[in-house]
């Protein structure tokens, strides 16, 4: 066990074992990318259950352990290996057929992320190196590839990938086109609400920063992605997943008493849909305004990793496209109400802001659904959609209670609103 290596590992943002006791860390694989650069897969074990496998790119020598990915030369080395579809030991690099890769002059590591490290090359391509290595098909690579090959304009095309040979398929990284001139849907939505709140007496449809046009186009983009995924990977009929939703409800109610107040009402909404056939297919799985990018041409969906914290199998299971729709609709409420979570202001002012936030969220929900229906052919079923929104809001309540208690009112308000509606 290398103490220096462990010290390095435990300081990384993507290290997930911070609250556990590490008992051992052994390299499962060391591949020399260059004389002084190693790609290392490190198996970490804990005293309380299953361990984790991490991917590191390390510089050897001088007795010092350090991350080498921040060095543009090293990052470009990985890029070149993908371009050449090289194989080094058990690590396979592969360029997508006909993909145009940048030559790689500049490379910069993007800001810290939870489970990946991203390197941007020449503002043209982005390499996502997976830090947590899991056996199984990676849904982000899988769906990005399917959408790219189908020519979908709503995805940043896949350019290449890295994986581990032998044993079950294991993804190490993916290279995609970088949407250089893009902004997150979240930032754009917040810019719009900012504009609204600065006006004393104008309605959401009257202010210059109205976002409804963008919401409609976003709805079209999401519908188009769903249609492409259904066409490429199939769709089927399943029963409304009442048990799964009830399980989540029970779990969250146990830890967040405020949800208990609504539990009976939520349950009866779910029960009313019991036995109802629904369409299931591959979906994004964790869609919200932070997972969509506005480019000069269109809206893109990014990060097809599925629901965080779930197993790969679960993340790849067919699900209702309404889960994605509900994700965006919930995100509108967050964008509209985030100003209110900052506190301050008198009761009167807060009441007024809340009314305007609701109005903004309603307007953009409606526009998104219109766009979704235009491009998808059908207006989402209201009762089903409400159930998926409830499921999402229950999940959010659990999350907020744990991490951001002052945001808890937000999902609770949404739950109250839906069950009373």
């Amino acid at each position: 066990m290398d103490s220096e290596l462990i010290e390095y590992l435990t300081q990384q943002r993507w290290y997930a074992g911070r609250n556990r006791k590490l008992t051992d860390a052994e390299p499962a694989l060391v591949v020399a990318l260059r004389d002084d650069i190693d790609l290392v897969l490190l198996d970490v074990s804990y005293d309380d259950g299953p361990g984790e496998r991490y991917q590191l790119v390390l510089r050897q020598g001088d007795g010092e352990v350090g991350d080498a990915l921040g060095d543009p030369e090293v990052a470009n080395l990985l890029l070149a290996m993908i371009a050449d579809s090289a194989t080094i030991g058990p690590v396979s690099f592969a360029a997508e057929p006909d993909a145009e890769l940048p030559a790689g002059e500049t490379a910069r590591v993007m800001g810290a992320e939870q489970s990946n490290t991203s390197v941007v090359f020449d503002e043209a391509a982005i390499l996502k190196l997976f830090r947590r290595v899991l056996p199984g098909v990676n849904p982000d690579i899988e769906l990005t590839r399917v959408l790219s090959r189908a020519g979908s304009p709503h995805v940043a095309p896949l350019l290449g990938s890295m994986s581990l040979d032998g044993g079950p398929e294991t993804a190490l990284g993916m290279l995609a086109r970088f949407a250089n001139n893009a902004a997150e849907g979240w930032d754009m939505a917040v810019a719009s609400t900012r504009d609204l709140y600065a006006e004393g007496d104008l309605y959401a449809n009257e202010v210059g920063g109205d976002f409804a046009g963008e919401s409609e186009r976003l709805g079209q983009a999401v519908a188009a992605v769903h249609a492409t995924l259904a066409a490429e990977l199939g769709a089927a009929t399943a029963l409304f997943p009442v048990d799964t939703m009830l399980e989540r409800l029970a779990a969250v109610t146990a830890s967040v008493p405020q949800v208990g107040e609504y539990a009976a009402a939520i349950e009866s909404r779910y029960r009313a849909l019991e036995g109802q056939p629904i369409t299931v297919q591959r979906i994004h799985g964790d869609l919200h305004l932070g997972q969509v990018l506005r480019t000069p041409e269109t809206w893109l969906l990014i990060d097809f990793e599925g629901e965080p914290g779930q197993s790969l199998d679960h993340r790849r299971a067919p699900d209702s496209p309404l889960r994605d729709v509900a994700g965006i609709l919930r995100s509108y409420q967050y964008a509209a109400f985030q100003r209110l979570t900052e506190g301050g202001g008198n009761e009167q002012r807060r009441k007024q802001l809340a009314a305007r936030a609701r109005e903004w969220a309603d307007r953009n929900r409606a526009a998104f659904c219109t766009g979704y229906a235009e491009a998808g052919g059908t207006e989402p079923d209201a009762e089903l959609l409400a159930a998926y929104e409830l499921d999402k809001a229950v999940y959010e309540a659990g999350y907020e209670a744990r991490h951001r208690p002052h945001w808890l009112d937000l999902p609770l308000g949404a739950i109250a609103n839906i069950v009373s509606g």
Partner: protein
Amino acid sequence: MDASNGGVEHPSAADFGHARVLPEDRTWFKRAVFYEVLVRAFYDSDADGSGDLRGLTERLDYLKWLGVDCIWLPPFYDSPLRDGGYDIRDFYKVLPEFGTVEDFVALLDAAHRRGIRVITDLVMNHTSDAHAWFQESRRDPTGPYGDYYVWSDTSEKYQDARVIFVDTEESNWTFDAVRKQFYWHRFFSHQPDLNYDNPAVQEAMIDVLRFWLDLGIDGFRLDAVPYLFEREGTNCENLPETHAFLKRCRKVIDDEFPGRVLLAEANQWPADVVAYFGDPETGGDECHMAFHFPLMPRIFMAVRRESRFPISEILAQTPEIPDLAQWGIFLRNHDELTLEMVTDEERDYMYSEYAKDPRMKANVGIRRRLAPLLENDRNQTELFTALLLSLPGSPVLYYGDEIGMGDIIWLGDRDGVRTPMQWSADRNAGFSTANPGRLYVPPSQDPVYGYQAVNVEAQRDTTNSLLNWTRTMLAVRRRHDAFAVGSFRELGGSNPSALTYVRELEGDGEVDTVLCVNNLSRFPQPIELNLQHWNGYTPVELTGRVEFPRIGELPYLLTLPGHGFYWFSLRAPVGEEP
């Protein structure tokens, strides 16, 4: 006109004096700042209540002081004025109230002496129905002008061509009671289209070009170029024959008058307009310039939405243009703010945001000046002007906008944006010494925009006036050719309210790099820029020459006030730095 044998005689350029010409320069228009001025509205030299060519000549020093490189004059030809002078009665004669051909030559000469060029509108597509050619054509179908216009026994031909002025015209055909045939007109029925299938018409129009070019004019804005020819089964726009004729005109320029320019007015999407620059292999062999129409409403939309994407979108859709070509870009001009090149949804948005009073609408557009469109917000006016001066293309200013003049929406048609230039707080805004009742339209007396409050004299003496600010920005722009002819690259960034781009020009082994950062939001914004390409460079702010912190490996952070902008020159590191 000698009507005895049906011949219409025209003067020759040799009958007049010629203006001195500026040194030959085939690319001046790519670097020029244009200024559109209406002769009638600028300065009245003879107290008849209407501006004239001599008046304009008297005020050239003002334009020189401001930093204008080229004046664009809407038509000043003899005309019955049923369409603002775009209905030309005689191509060889100046509208008497504006002066004479001699006055025009004197204007050209005085402008050239100051290094200022002059271009004017030329309507190629049609004439006034009062033009002698048309009168001859209807009187004598077999005479020399019988075939100068597009005549037909029926009104059934070319049904696929749209009617452009839907408010006033029902058809593109009108029956003429004299000739007892229908004549073709894409615009008003009093503006019959010339028949370009007749070689004599092509010759006659090229003779018109030669006449004014011989006198020394620097170029023409060709009005309504897409409509010159008609072909059954087409929409009669942008036909190959039209392009072939423009190539002929360009050859006349290149062979006989190098350095003069043709500017196409084609109100279409940029991807379609580029055809009017001609063959890129030759560097362009039709028009030197064309207006970029959709950019302007997108600038308004982007600032109102506090999002760069309306602008980014249209620039991303704008194709490359030939080496010897340039876009003309503008915020406002003598027409309404035209909304033909936006979607229906965007048009509704523009109306609701910028034309709150129904009288502010005209045809498919908004008839307002820049300052009132922006609610007289100085910060926004500066931001808009900074965008105009730094986006790709040669900027066209509209007279009076440099002092923030307002409009009079109660005047008919588009006269509201064509009121007299406000020179001073004196009678008639210093525009004319005529009895106020004689003015063609009154100057603005609005408490905010009226001439007592807004005029050149007062603003010239105030350091921080809009006029002096505009003059400074024109001077800054002139110091960096990158603004005019540099490459354009958007830098993007995560803040949707920030529009950031780099203009770069290589020359003499050095690269002139200008960085423009614009905050389209009314609220202060932080902006993080990835400037890795310029690691080690120092941004130098261009109006005050203040050095900003050196660019490093990390994202470069700037903060901007609401509607703020920066222009930086990026200075390369010199020698070995520690």
